[in-house]
């Protein structure tokens, strides 16, 4: 059996080039709440990027592995998500 690990512990094994200047994720709080997108993206994101703080959904974009899952489950308009700028973001050494 492998040792259980938290998501941040797992992500520590993956390489990232963090874009300090620009987040590639923007959240429409209103739409997120009214469409239930908030709960869905918090649950599906394998990198634990989304969490709820004081009734708002926040995105820790630096941990994003760019899988596209949140975008696939989000209601139209609830999330503005695009790839990080060229050269930034996750950088797999294995894949």
């Amino acid at each position, binding site marked *: *059996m492998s040792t259980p690990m938290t998501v941040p512990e797992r*992500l520590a094994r993956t390489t990232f080039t963090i874009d300090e200047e620009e987040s590639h994720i923007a959240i429409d709080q209103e739409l997120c709440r009214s469409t239930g997108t908030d709960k869905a993206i918090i649950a599906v994101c*394998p990198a634990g990027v989304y969490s709820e703080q004081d009734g708002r959904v926040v995105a820790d974009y630096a941990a994003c*592995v760019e899988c*596209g*899952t949140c975008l696939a489950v989000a209601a139209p308009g609830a999330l503005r998500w695009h*790839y990080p700028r*060229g050269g930034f973001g996750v950088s797999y050494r*294995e894949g």
Partner: protein
Amino acid sequence: MSEVAEPDFDVAVVGAGPAGAVAAYRMASAGLSVVLIERGETPGSKNLSGGVLYGRVLDEVFPGFADEAPVERRITRHVTTFLTPDSAVGIDYSGQGLADPVNAVTVLRAKFDPWLAGKAEEAGAFLMPGVRVDTLLTEPGPDGAPRVVGVQAGDDQLRARVVVAADGVNSFLARSIGLRPKEPTNHMAVGVKAVMALPRQTIEDRFGVTGDQGAAHAIVGDCTLGIGGGGFLYTNTTSLSVGVVLRLDDLVRSGRTSAEVFEHYLQHPGLAPYLRGAEMVEYGAHVVAEGGLAMVGEVATHGMLVVGEAAGLTINSGLTVRGMDLAIGSGLAAADAVVEALAAGDVSREGLAGYRRRLEESFVMKDMRTYGKAPKFLERTGMYGAYGELAASIFHDVFALDGTPRRHLVQTAKAAFSRSPVTLRQLVSDGWAGVRAL
């Protein structure tokens, strides 16, 4: 006639995955000027897959590629395991015939993709890594419909006679020009994966392989906690690729987190003997197209073709995910169509129609059709829960020698059925649907 800017390249290929790299290779080999644009710092740095590449089509392009490319192992053993919370039933198929000619190999994309892109460069394609394409450049065509004339990245514009969108399953390019609508979530899954390091000898002993041979394990049942999908466990040279693929509609419905399901999978007693002592060296995830044939729509518009997973070309048979070989096949079909269209001087949708025709004639669409009913079949939840229980129950009765006289297998199975929520009729119906779908 208005002044038309001279294109910078004959073709701009966006995305240096298998689809884009092979298309660029083929077109550059035919003498076209090709730019291959990739947002990752190097090709493959953004890409992740389970890693079993069915190699026949690539072998046609690069004969003997498995001897030259950074492949991990040649798959000679396929194991299918049905898990319940406390048992595992497996079907084990090994065949040395699978090694030569190479049927399937394991690859790690961060190592394999650069090799493939290198082949395109050798053929004369210009590789432009670290550049994210933001939008398509379009102009009104003769009939008023938008015609793709290049791409824009930041402030830079790059004009090309044809754009090949090879930008993967999340294809923003195909979406932006209306070639792919937003997918329903039952057409999408998320693959969560880790690479776990193990010594070479341990892998060979544990998985019953020698030398450069490898094993591919497909796992269904309790590993996904009843969520549509399955698990995989593939051998690399000195590591394992371990992951789950979870259908998004089911995952959302379940109320569970993807990380929780992945951890449950890693902790499953059925996996423990394989993972003991292995150390996680990388964690990642990616969306996989699951819609099968239903997801493949228009693949061409004026001045642009869509290839690989950007076009929805993935087959999930429940036990294997196939996308890389289909990506390569579509890249070849697109390249030949572009060469033909440029020679004829017609890059309108009609001029590029040779792509669709070639796709249909190739193994790509034939296999997509063969497996066309698979997604519907896989929505029958029995695959993930009750069948594992049933199989385990049958095998329990066969192997659990408790002193009572052995019964014939059929009676054992019948007894197991009577305890299982699966009815014989349902099994027959699913079995038949399965035969037709798979």
